[in-house]
């Protein structure tokens, strides 16, 4: 029984020894041949994630700038109002 199992195991292990190389299917050959055209220098495409990240960064940058400008304008207005009030009070003296 044991010998039979050993023989069977050895046959199983030998079953791939005479394996030949499988041929590449034609559709895969076409896909491989197309790689230089699809991924060549002139057809380089940015990954969509990079594009989204760039757009998000620009949007954030513009928003921060706009908030900063608005804040600055408001502060300037406030300062102008306080200055004019102060000076007008001095004028009255």
């Amino acid at each position, binding site marked *: 029984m044991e010998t039979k*199992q050993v023989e*069977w195991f050895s046959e*199983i292990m030998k079953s791939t020894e005479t394996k030949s190389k*499988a041929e590449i299917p034609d559709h895969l050959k076409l896909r491989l041949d197309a*790689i*230089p055209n699809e991924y060549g220098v002139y057809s380089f495409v940015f990954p969509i994630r990079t594009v989204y990240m760039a757009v998000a960064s620009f949007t954030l940058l513009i928003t921060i700038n706009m908030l900063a400008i608005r804040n600055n304008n408001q502060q300037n207005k406030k300062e102008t109002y306080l200055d004019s009030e102060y000076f007008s009070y001095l004028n009255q003296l």
Partner: protein
Amino acid sequence: MTDFEEIEGLKQGNERSFQMLLDAYSKNVYNLCLSILQNQEDAEDTTQEIFIAVFLSINEFKGESKLHTWLYRIAVNKCQECIRKKNRKKRFSFLNRIDSSENANLIPSFLHPGIELENKERASILFSAIARLPENQKIAFTLHKIEGITYEEAAITMNLSLSSIESLMFRAKQNLKKTLGEYHKNNEL
């Protein structure tokens, strides 16, 4: 054309050099993927991914190893990625979990197109047993026993030492003996 000329042409984006690379290695790479992944569709997709990676990263090849060893290393990495992706999908799929518990009895399912007709059944049992090995043992065993790559090249390809490959092979054989022994007992062959 020598390896060196081929690489120089590839680095310059030469389409003819890429075609020569495909002629020389695509069949080997496809067969390696087929043996590791044991699924024709996955092997086809992974082969394409490997050659895209080679085309895009050929400038990173420094010539410290042979071109085909570098190519096999990319192939093994891509196959491992594919296996992990599939395992992740399986882990999150309740139905697949039930399915895999039913498959615990070693059901031969993969028929390698390069195996002779008389050996198909036996090879199918062997491939099923290989599929149940831990990832590194599976790859080492497939590289050496199925694809005929030497221990030295397998060590470079898997980025491991020679002794690690020997140990992986030893454990793979032990595990295969155990799995196939159980199969033999259960099926009373």
